[in-house]
């Protein structure tokens, strides 16, 4: 099976063959995300030598690291964006991409996510939201839908999920979009846009975890979960006309923001120029 992938999958050149097959479960949405990312890179003709991929801890942190053949920094839980901040300052001409999960980036790492968006640092974050802590065995996440069952909310979830895209858009990111793994072509287009935007960009991908989430919530099959996404997805233009009650349990998809704002590393380098100029430090 693995051998067949190596010969038939056209984007295999972007993958670290010695690390395959992936650790992801059958039916996981992670493969779709990796495929979408590889397609976006391929369509934009980005040389992987110009990419640094950073991830944290959890299943979704494994989507691109170590499988994507680029410089890859697999960090501690929640801290990927902070590590990526240092990488981007050091390598302003490279594209720095963070691919990780909702628990990693929006719970334990939520503070870094908000502040990177506020700084508008030119990092692309692909946040894979599967509503659950998959790797640790299906515990409650800050994204778990109200009422859903997990191993640590065995009766029902009484907490409200964090609206990640809305939060990051409010914090000041240049580009924010949300899709699901059932919207592959839109997802590829958004990743392409995110990679080209000068500033902080977030692509939130709602992604199925049939093993840890679906199984406990009457959606054992991956296809059932994809159908659930399709049935409940509402384009952002339509969502604007709906009441909060009507939007309960829906997934708002589309582009939340796409705007120009001063970018952090550019400003940092501009500041250095100004300071050196001011103190007469420029070389002859």
């Amino acid at each position: 099976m693995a051998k067949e992938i190596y010969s038939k999958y056209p984007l295999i050149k972007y993958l670290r063959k010695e690390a395959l097959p992936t650790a992801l479960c059958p039916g996981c949405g992670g493969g779709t995300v990796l495929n979408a990312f590889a397609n976006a890179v391929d369509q934009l003709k980005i040389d992987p030598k110009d990419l640094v991929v950073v991830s944290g801890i959890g299943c979704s942190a494994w989507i691109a690291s170590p499988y994507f053949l680029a410089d890859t920094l697999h960090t501690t839980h929640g801290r990927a964006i902070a590590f990526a901040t240092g990488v981007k300052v050091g390598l302003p001409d490279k594209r720095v991409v963070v691919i990780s999960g909702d628990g990693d980036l929006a719970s334990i790492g939520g503070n870094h996510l908000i502040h990177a968006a506020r700084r508008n640092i030119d990092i692309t974050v692909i946040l894979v939201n599967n509503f659950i802590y998959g790797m640790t065995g299906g515990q409650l996440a800050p994204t778990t839908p109200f009422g859903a069952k997990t191993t640590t909310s065995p009766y029902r979830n009484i907490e409200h999920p964090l609206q990640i895209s809305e939060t990051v858009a409010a914090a000041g990111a240049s580009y924010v979009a949300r899709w699901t793994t059932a919207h592959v072509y839109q997802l590829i287009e958004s990743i392409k846009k995110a990679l080209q935007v000068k500033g902080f960009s977030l692509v939130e991908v709602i992604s199925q975890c049939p093993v840890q989430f679906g199984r406990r919530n009457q959606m054992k099959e991956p296809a059932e979960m994809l159908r659930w996404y399709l049935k409940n997805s509402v384009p952002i233009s339509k969502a604007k006309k709906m009441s909060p009650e009507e939007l309960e349990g829906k997934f708002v998809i589309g582009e939340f923001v796409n705007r120009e704002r001063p970018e952090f590393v550019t400003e940092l380098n501009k500041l250095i120029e100004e300071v050196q100029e001011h103190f007469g430090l420029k070389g002859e």
Partner: protein
Amino acid sequence: MIVRGDEPEQIRLLKKLYRPGNYFMQGNEALAYGAIFAGCRFYAGYPITPSSEIAEMMARELPKLGGYYLQMEDEIGSIAAMVGASWTGFKVMTATAGPGFSLMQENLGYAVMTETPLVLVDVQRSGPSTGQATKGAQGDFFQARWGTHGDHPIVALSPTSGQDAFWETIRAFNIAERLRTPVVMLFDGVLAHTRELVKIPDVEEVEITYRKLPKNEEEAKLPFGDPHGDGVPPMPLFGHGYFTHVTGSTHKENGLRDVYTPEVHDRLVRRLHRKIEKNKDVYEKYEEHFTEDAEILVVSWGVTARPALGAVLKAREEGIKAGLFVPKTVHPFPGERMKQLGKRVRAVLVAEMNLGQMIIEVERYINDDVLLKGINKIGGVPLTVEEILREIRGVA
């Protein structure tokens, strides 16, 4: 981009900006100057008393040198950003105090495991918890050693004055670069805020070093190997097309994760230890005063080493054969030398601003027939010459 700090352009800027001479300055400023002369061009931090002047000075000076100051959202993010920047080639530093140091422990372990050079300054303040935020202490001796989880080696230095902070910071960077490892600087709130004379030397008087880089593609393929037999692998920096994979998980020599093979973990973690143990000449450093004929040995470190020397000098005036041993690299502890000295004396007094931390290391290296006593003071006020002298007289 690589900024080593000794490029001709950097030398030109340093010469233009910092005229050699004697200056009256805070310990924190002296330490920051040391970092600048050592080639630190990336600083990520979060304000915390009594370390904040270091951040303020780096924010002011680094842009002049084309360097980067980043104020992160917390201490966890600060050390994370440092690791990221170090993998792009920068010499990196942060400064914090006890509470922030606690928050940095997880990623300090990450830096050990991924062999990332960085300098972490802990301006020790009185704890536990928020404690006496503005007051100095020496309570983080073991936080530096064992704060992060798991078996790991660590190198920690502790300067004894503002002038010493300047040179020891340069030494910290040189060790970090030479051994591809994080180095902790155990400074303290007393020295940090003491203003005293500090000599800024000519740039040429400062020797700095830079990490080993891979000589060829083959070496770059083994970012965690040991091609030179010294335990220190060359560092294939990001952005050079090496496709380096870095992870805090147990990894093979090529960087890829393998957490299932016991031998892989054993090999990696033992090499990390060996790398430090066998390169003692790179970091071991201590000072001795009157140890040749001493009968009473005072052992002290950091800020307390100063009143300790005063007390030993006074004791000598009184005809008491006292001596002083000051480990400058406190981790790994200079145990061999301690053992030799311990054999020649009848009493060892360990003076420190805590309730007895370095004394636990000292105890491991001296015999039972030697009288061992701690001279301890907490509350934020440093030990005085008189207080230490009294204890010396008590055992004379």
